[in-house]
């Protein structure tokens, strides 16, 4: 009895997303069973647990807000949750589907739907933090299971989790990897991107495409100049900034300015 009361109550909620970050949990294997011993899973629909209305200690949020219903639902979840943590690019920055924000959203909807007046969807895809207070963000598209385990462990010890905002380049250096940009001229987003994935793209010989979001003090303008030096045209560079985390700063403003300048 006493033991169950001390276990943190945890919920996993889904908003607009591909489910890949929840899968990071379901892919934990043995560690998942171990995790369920240490916390009490209250709501995790994909794993069969339904308790969306209950009070919890930690709520993990996957996905972005793209419908009026989701905008309301996140307010309730915030009220029920002591700590609210976003998992993945969609929840943390609006995700790839935030590309609609920079287009003429209404025109897109009208082009796709014969009767857009009946569509229960917003013209934008927005990060959870644009709607409610977020206590901690886990970046990544997708996140990996270790990130979740680290956060839960920190919670079990009663300490704040450690945010990872180093640049990917540092990971390549730590791993002793040869730089794909310097040696092969591959346009790599590593200099402006968070660590956390383990430098996967450079490990297979390609440039990073920033799926872990902007690092601390990311110098996106400097990287734009470097990419121009590699021979990329403005349009190609804008596409790289306006990709998985297109709605996160500084990617959004630098990318959009670049895009506007090639439309002129």
């Amino acid at each position, binding site marked *: 009895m006493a033991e169950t009361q001390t276990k943190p109550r945890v919920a996993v909620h889904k908003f607009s997303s591909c489910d890949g970050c929840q*899968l990071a949990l379901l*892919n934990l294997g043995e560690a998942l*069973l171990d995790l369920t011993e240490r916390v009490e899973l209250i709501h995790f629909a994909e794993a069969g*647990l339904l308790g969306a209305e209950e009070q919890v200690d930690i709520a993990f949020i996957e996905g972005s807000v*793209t419908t009026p219903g989701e905008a309301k639902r996140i307010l309730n979840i915030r009220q029920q949750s002591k700590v609210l943590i976003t998992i993945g690019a969609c929840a943390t920055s609006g*995700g790839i589907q935030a590309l609609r924000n920079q287009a003429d959203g209404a025109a897109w909807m009208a082009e796709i739907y014969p009767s857009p007046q009946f*569509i229960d969807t917003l013209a934008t895809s927005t990060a959870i933090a644009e709607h409610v207070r977020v206590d901690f963000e886990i970046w990544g598209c997708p996140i990996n299971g270790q990130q979740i385990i680290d956060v839960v462990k920190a919670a079990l010890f009663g300490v704040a989790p450690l945010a990872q905002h180093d640049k990917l380049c540092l990971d390549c250096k730590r791993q002793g990897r040869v730089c794909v940009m310097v040696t092969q001229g591959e346009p790599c987003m590593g200099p402006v991107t968070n660590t956390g994935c383990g430098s996967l793209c450079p490990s*297979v010989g390609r440039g990073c495409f920033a*799926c872990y979001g902007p690092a601390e003090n990311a110098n996106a303008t400097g990287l734009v100049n470097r990419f121009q030096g590699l021979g990329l045209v403005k349009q190609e560079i804008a596409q790289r900034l306006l990709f*998985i985390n297109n709605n996160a700063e500084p990617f959004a403003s630098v990318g959009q300015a670049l895009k506007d300048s090639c439309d002129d």
Partner: protein
Amino acid sequence: MTESREVSIRVPVLARVEGEGALDLSISDGELTNVQLRIYEPPRLFEKFLQGRRFDEVPDMVARICGICPVAYQMSAVHAMESVFACQPGPWVREMRRLIYCGEWIESHALHIHLLAAPDFFGYRSVTEMAKDYPMEVRRGLKLQGLGNELIRILGARSVHPVGAAVGGFYHAPSKSAVAELLQKIKQALPEAEALVRWVATLDVPQHEQQFHCVALRHEHEYPINEGRLVSSSGLDIDVSEFQHHFKEQQVPHSTAFHCHLNGEPYLVGPLARVNLNRDKFPEVVKNLIDELPVKWPSFNTFHSALARAIEVFYALHEAVRILSAYQMPDQTRQSITPQAGVGYACTEAPRGILWHRYEMDQQGEVVNAIIVPPTSQNQARIEADLRQSLQDFGLHNDDDALRQHAEMVVRNYDPCISCSTHFLILNVDRC
């Protein structure tokens, strides 16, 4: 039915499906008057924002449609675009694409059998409850799922949204030592995969046959994954480019995803359809195991879908052993691409069934137009037809809870991955 009553059962959140869906049932005077699987996964407009993107960005974009089957999206996309660019990546790439796809089948099927479907058969709410009573079976499932993920990782660096696949081939080749190590692990797991098949065959499932069309790819020399003609149990045999002449997507007011019909009728895609149409292409070791099972093939009992998944896990592990055993380092891992304008089609066998892509590309290699037809939207009409019959067979006199549980079990059989329904039409005319 002697009893006369009116009930309306709503299941607002369907647990243990990937993505979001809900189910509405209405029964009046012992007859089912309304069966609606409602999809309320919000539209994410992928086909729209693919426009104007260069070919080399497309594999990373389409992966994000579905976190459960990103490899399928990448494979359909690269094959379709290569057909536009007249690119033929050669035998090494062909085998590696089969290998990474085997990984996804194993991962997705093992996940579905153990975490999503099995708790139904034993009456548990979730796998964590079930693990307390069936620790060995659950651990075996998690281990096989993990091996599937490792197969994806050896080429893709990670299992969700892998980064290895490119138009023209792969960004890198696994080392021979990494291959040898994984081969060893997979060989050791083969007896466990066999035990999985035998275990799933013993599960007590309802014995009701239905009539439906099965649709799958079919290849002359192999069990279909990346290539083949589109065939059906009712005699269809077409090139994948002819898909739109025979299959029509249709809007339904109660769902945000389209329903797809074959010549006006619902049809089944996925593991059961594949096994029904292609089991003659399995290697002897798989055929022999199937012959020992107490199930007759082809099977038109959709509750045999879980068994079909287990059989495909067993097959995919054997196929991985075959490919890894013959592994050689390639001279080059990918062809360089010279873009040209045109239209290309591809269809591959995602874990949940055929995934059809069509791309129109311009001279610069940018997408002009994309159409994606995922398996879940194709199965939707079939799921509703199944529910109508399964619930009658189950007995409408059962109480609401039992009916709801049975209905959910029927739906979960199809492993509906609702986040992969890429184009939507919310048209709730009743509301206004």
